[in-house]
């Protein structure tokens, strides 16, 4: 029983809880998310070639996702904490099931089909379970984690990550690994471990490059790192998206006026590459405003992390917030040609129900952490 036992809630009773706290919703996050939904409706309408149906479906996903978010926010963080081991083991078993009898599509085996009921990606579940698991494990121990605990935390991270990597789904596995590693870093992972890991990785990578990898594998890595060297494959998207973004200028061409994106130059314009449409039509101003909204969301997440009351909640909230930022950064960096192309959607803007609902579930957890606090620790 090393887990910190919370103080009795009696102290909080004296203070009146606000309406929002009683319904366990954070108004700041909610307003920002609704704002992004409105932006999305406009951008998606343009990016989908004026498809009302697609916008309608996406808004329906938003509605479902927000409902899920509110429901999740009702659970006590302690309740989630209790179920983390079960969720982790269950999620990992589902990943094994995917590899054994998953459904294949586009060369990757990512889905589990429950005949007649539904089809889902267990890796989505891990997006939430991973930060929880690491936070659960490290939160119950003294910080900064000792070497043994770091090793176990890394094991917790890499078992599902390797399973997802085998599907293969590089983008998702990297994001999930990132969410676990963020929790580990926030837990105060000693600097010497970080440096040690980097020192170990560099020669390992060099050794792989010179002694293990074949010529064609090296070529693929190079293409991955520099997609523009492969203009017929992945570089095609980047060349076109850069032209779309660049031609937007400072103020953009105006809503529905984008040419690059509308002439089918931009494949996947409504999913992973949607920021190119926004950048073309609303210019640098539009992109900066969007980044501003993201920054507000992230700031709010960091505030929630600061005010969280135990290590589990802090690590979890911090990890969710930073992972959210990574989504934003990797997606925009990829579309603008800064980063390699990995399939990462732009949060709240890219078309797609599954990722949206997972994302909103994460914000539900943040809300839960923030609104279930006991008032005893509030000094200011």
């Amino acid at each position, binding site marked *: 029983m090393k887990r910190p036992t919370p103080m009795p809630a009696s102290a909080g009773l004296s203070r009146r809880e606000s309406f929002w706290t009683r319904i366990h919703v954070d108004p700041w996050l909610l307003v920002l998310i609704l704002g992004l939904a409105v932006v999305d409706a406009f951008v998606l309408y343009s990016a989908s070639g004026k498809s009302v149906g697609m916008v309608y479906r996406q808004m329906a996903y938003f509605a479902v996702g927000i409902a899920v978010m509110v429901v999740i926010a009702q659970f006590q963080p302690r309740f989630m904490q209790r179920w983390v081991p079960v969720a982790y083991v269950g999620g990992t078993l589902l990943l094994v099931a995917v590899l054994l009898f998953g459904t294949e599509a586009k060369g990757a085996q990512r889905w589990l089909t429950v005949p007649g009921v539904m089809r889902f990606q267990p890796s989505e579940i891990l997006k939430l379970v991973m930060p929880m698991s690491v936070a659960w494990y490290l939160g119950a121990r003294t910080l900064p984690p000792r070497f043994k605990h770091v090793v176990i935390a890394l094991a917790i991270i890499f078992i599902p990550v390797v399973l997802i990597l085998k599907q293969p789904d590089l983008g998702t596995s990297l994001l999930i690994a990132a969410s676990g590693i963020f929790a580990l870093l926030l837990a105060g992972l000693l600097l010497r471990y970080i440096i040690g890991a980097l020192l170990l990785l560099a020669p390992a990578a060099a050794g792989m490059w010179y002694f293990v990898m074949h010529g064609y594998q090296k070529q693929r890595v190079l293409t991955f790192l520099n997609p523009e060297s492969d203009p017929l494959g992945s570089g095609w998207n980047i060349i076109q998206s850069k032209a779309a973004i660049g031609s937007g200028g400072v103020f953009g061409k105006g809503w529905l006026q984008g040419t690059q994106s509308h002439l089918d130059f931009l494949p996947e314009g409504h999913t992973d590459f949607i920021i190119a449409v926004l950048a073309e039509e609303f210019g*640098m101003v539009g992109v900066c405003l969007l980044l501003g909204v993201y920054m507000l969301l992230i700031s709010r997440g960091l505030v929630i992390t600061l005010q969280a009351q135990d290590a589990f909640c802090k690590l979890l909230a911090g990890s969710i917030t930073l992972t959210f930022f990574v989504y934003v950064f990797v997606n925009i*960096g990829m579309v603008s040609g800064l980063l390699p192309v990995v399939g990462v959607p732009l949060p709240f803007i890219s078309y797609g129900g599954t990722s949206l609902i997972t994302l909103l579930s994460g914000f539900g957890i943040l809300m839960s952490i923030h609104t279930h606090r006991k008032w005893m620790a509030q000094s200011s």
Partner: protein
Amino acid sequence: MSKPIHLKDHSKDAGIVHRRLLVAAVLVLALVGALVARMYYLQVTQYEHHSTLSENNRVHVQPIPPTRGRIYDRNGEVLAENRPSYSLTITRDRVKDLPATFDLLKSLLALSDEDVEQAERRLMQARRPFESVPVMLELTQEQIARIAINQFRLPGVEVQASFVRYYPFADHFAHALGYVGRINERELKSIDTVAYAGTHYIGKTGVERYYEELLHGTVGYEEVETNARGRVLRVLSRTEPVAGKDLTLQLDANLQRVAEEALGDRRGAVVAIDPATGGVLAFVSKPGFDPNLFVTGISYADYGALRDSLDQPLFNRVLRGQYPPGSTIKPVVALSGLDSGATTRSARVYDPGFFQLPNFSHKYRNWNRSGDGWVDMSYAIARSNDTYFYDLANKMGIDKMHDYLTRFGIGQRVSIDMYEEAPGLMPSSEWKRNKYKQPWYPGETLIAGIGQGYMLATPLQLAQTMALIANHGKWHRPRLLMDAEGIPPDESDTPDDIKLRDESDWGFITQAMQDVMQSPHGTARAAAKGAEYNMAGKSGTAQVVAIAQGERYDSKSLRERHRDHALFVGFAPTEKPLIAVAALVENGESGGRVAGPVVRAVFDAWVLPRLPKPEVEITDAPQEAAP
């Protein structure tokens, strides 16, 4: 009791996390700064550049297909080349009204409904946006002119010059070379679509298929600026394609012609191997077909005719024809018998015209019903005596035979680079147990001894057994490729050489096989008549219809196609073998009389020019060299 400690830890923990959060926040700000800087670079610094590109003009990446490697025979004769051809291409994204365009094309080029349907189907296969898809191939000059005149009414439609595969020898090398054809849906899933951007053909069979990767080359591309109508205004950058590698094959077009002529109009196969290298010198499967038909898409009628023909022109008899090897396997069985110790060179067997297993009434007949009397191994090979080999097989047992014959390549793929090769079949008691859940019967061993029963071999495998005997057991897998611009065939998987306990057994069997052709009692002495060099051979017949016990074989009563296949294998010259050959004549009945002369013709064509010339002939030579 431990509560105070937890509280202390708790606040310390919070401090740690908060410090890390601060670092994270700074990093987040820095990275967002990087994104903003990137946007500034693209949207402000490079605005002019991108804006011009996007205003009226469009940037495109066009693939430049590599030129497919040519294929030559060993003397540099072109077996496969690329011929310029004009095709009609459509870029769907630029066509405003597709049905109207097709209507116009239909009236301009006098297309049939079927042509239009096929063109539409091809158009559906577009892989990238703005890909131009060839919908009609082999345009005539008149058709090109009609398109040119009406070009303004046909946005997105273009006439493009491209290269099309051409096989100058038409049907003569069809089975060895294979052919290329349009990439189909199934292949599209397995190929690297980037490498094949702009390429519309892929090797379907034969050498074209096996060496596809070498022949194909590396795609190039150019970044071009086009106007709204799709016309290329400016090439921004260009990366040249790398042409595919030219292949030089071991085949000899002249020897191929000789083999075909020797086979005449009959159905069959001839394959000749250079024992010293494994190089396939001739590869004939008759009847053939014109592979050029397949390149641009064969019509249903033509394909149906080829597919349904009783002569099976599409059937690759050299590689896919699996026949009971018959008596041609006897030299190998004899070697196995000697090496395994089941018999000796001089051990004799009495042949009353049949062989009987003890306690069985069934008579296993010799082809010579009156019997050859006492026979030893050498005589048994020369006379192709069945009784001797029934007896030898009985002494060895099927599993020992299986072990030996497998080392000679029976029942497995022997070639390096022949895509379609069938493995044949070398039975064993274990094989039969697995396959039929039945025990192996002694009678089945006997007929295996004369190459009948379950045993199956392709003409290529039979030629390989000869190359192995000629080469005294040294393995070189048969290969068509001699060299692909410095790349040799992949020999990494060469089987172990066959080592006999007594190496002189090779010479003994070779002599016995020479007796087949060049001794007074040899079964194929007619085929070797007047030879200027020594040759070794063995005839065989492969039964097409099993003969019931007691029934006499009457070829006249059988339809022609039920007659036995004639086989002949051999190598020459026996002292220093230059060539090993297997010939199969379907329904040819007599190995020695029908297939033997085919092998002899191939021998002569290859060996005679390579014999040391007698001094006298110099006087017949042209006098040019003399002053």
